[in-house]
């Protein structure tokens, strides 16, 4: 009986998605040994009802002039969608991990020359349901 209980309890834990802290740590490591982790954004989004209204996780961050930032995105093993990270300034998109041809990069660098408030958007390609973490770091070495 105890065995069955432990099995069910452990299954109910592992059935949940990947541990966010582990995913953040992995993603910050993937960003490269020359980077310094600053912030992370753990994002779980449902499937889009329509392609015109794709769910998006939005955050703001102040980025500083003459600083070389790296924005990375890492998908959880069980994520159905591929995460996309984008950077906006004053409502205008200035950088994205997906190109116009649809190629997805796991990170992009941003050489900042204007101190100010920026918006970091995370969504999933084609509005699929997904679980990913975005990591903001700066290149330090």
């Amino acid at each position, binding site marked *: 009986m105890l065995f069955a209980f432990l099995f069910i309890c452990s299954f109910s834990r592992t059935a949940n998605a990947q541990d966010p802290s582990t995913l953040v740590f992995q993603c910050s490591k993937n960003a490269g040994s020359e980077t310094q982790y600053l912030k992370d954004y753990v994002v779980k989004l449902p499937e889009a009802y329509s392609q015109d209204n794709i769910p998006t996780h939005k955050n703001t961050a*102040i980025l500083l002039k003459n600083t070389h930032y790296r924005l990375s995105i890492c998908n959880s093993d069980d994520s159905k969608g591929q995460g996309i990270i984008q950077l906006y300034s004053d409502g205008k998109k200035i950088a994205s991990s997906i190109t116009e041809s649809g190629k997805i990069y796991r990170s992009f660098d941003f050489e900042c*020359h204007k101190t100010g408030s920026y918006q970091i958007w995370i969504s999933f390609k084609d509005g699929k349901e997904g679980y990913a973490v975005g990591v903001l770091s700066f290149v330090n070495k």
Partner: protein
Amino acid sequence: MKQILYIFKNVQGFLLVLILMVSCRTSVDNSEYNENTRQDSSISAMEIEVSEEALVEIVANIASPIEMAALMNRLGVPFSKRYLANTSSVNDLNTNFQMAYKLGIFGADLGYLNMYEKSSAAVEYISIIKTLADGLRVGQFFDYTTLKRLATNNQNLDSLMFLSVHSYNEIDSYLRETPGRSYLSSLMISGLWIEGLYLITQVAKEYPHPDISERIGEQKIILTDLLNVLNLYKKNPSFNELIRDFETLNVEFKKINITYEIGEPETIEKVIEKDTILVIVQNEKSIVDISEDQLNSIIEKTEKVRNKLIGL
């Protein structure tokens, strides 16, 4: 009869498993509930007036002092322990207000120590931070054992840095998202910010450099955001005093002129460690116009405000 007993036995077993699972789940829920409902009576009443959503949006917008320390390090400014806040008075702190504020102060100092790889000196700060985090009941987000081991053994400094910053992010997120406790996040952020500013202004006094002056001038933007957050709590006398102190600094920052040059970003592909990455170079620029007199006034006022606040 035998069949009825067999069914009863199985149903009983199933129910037992179900009860155990439910109790397992509710014990987690209860601990979350208890943590969430333990509020600070002195400030919780006024918190009703604060829009939590607005706070999350604004506080997430405050920059990290790590970038300040990185700039000093990059410019070859030597490390100095003189800049750091004294840890001796921590055990005398008895309000959440003081503890949250100092959690920020010592967090900035820890960032500075880590950036200069002074891991043995960081041990003392890690211990103090753990005391404060426990006092605020957020010690579960600060992995003291691992941090202390990494710092003591002077090993894996990247992990030490990651874990330090990540712990602060976790504490901040938890406080911001927990009803009745978001004011503690704004205090922690205030402490981080003023100590980061203090560190760089002390460096500016001894090692003047245009990049350092510009970084100080840019704080005008951050202070504006920070004051927006603090003003949400201005009805509280302690907050009111903190706001007044920060306003004296704001008077000086308002004199600084920041202008912008328009430009379109350029995207290039770079190969780094066999991996192709996109590099976006921003051609829009911010230009900080800060005179020597303005800089000196900010240095002087920052020192006064920070020293007053660490003496609270």
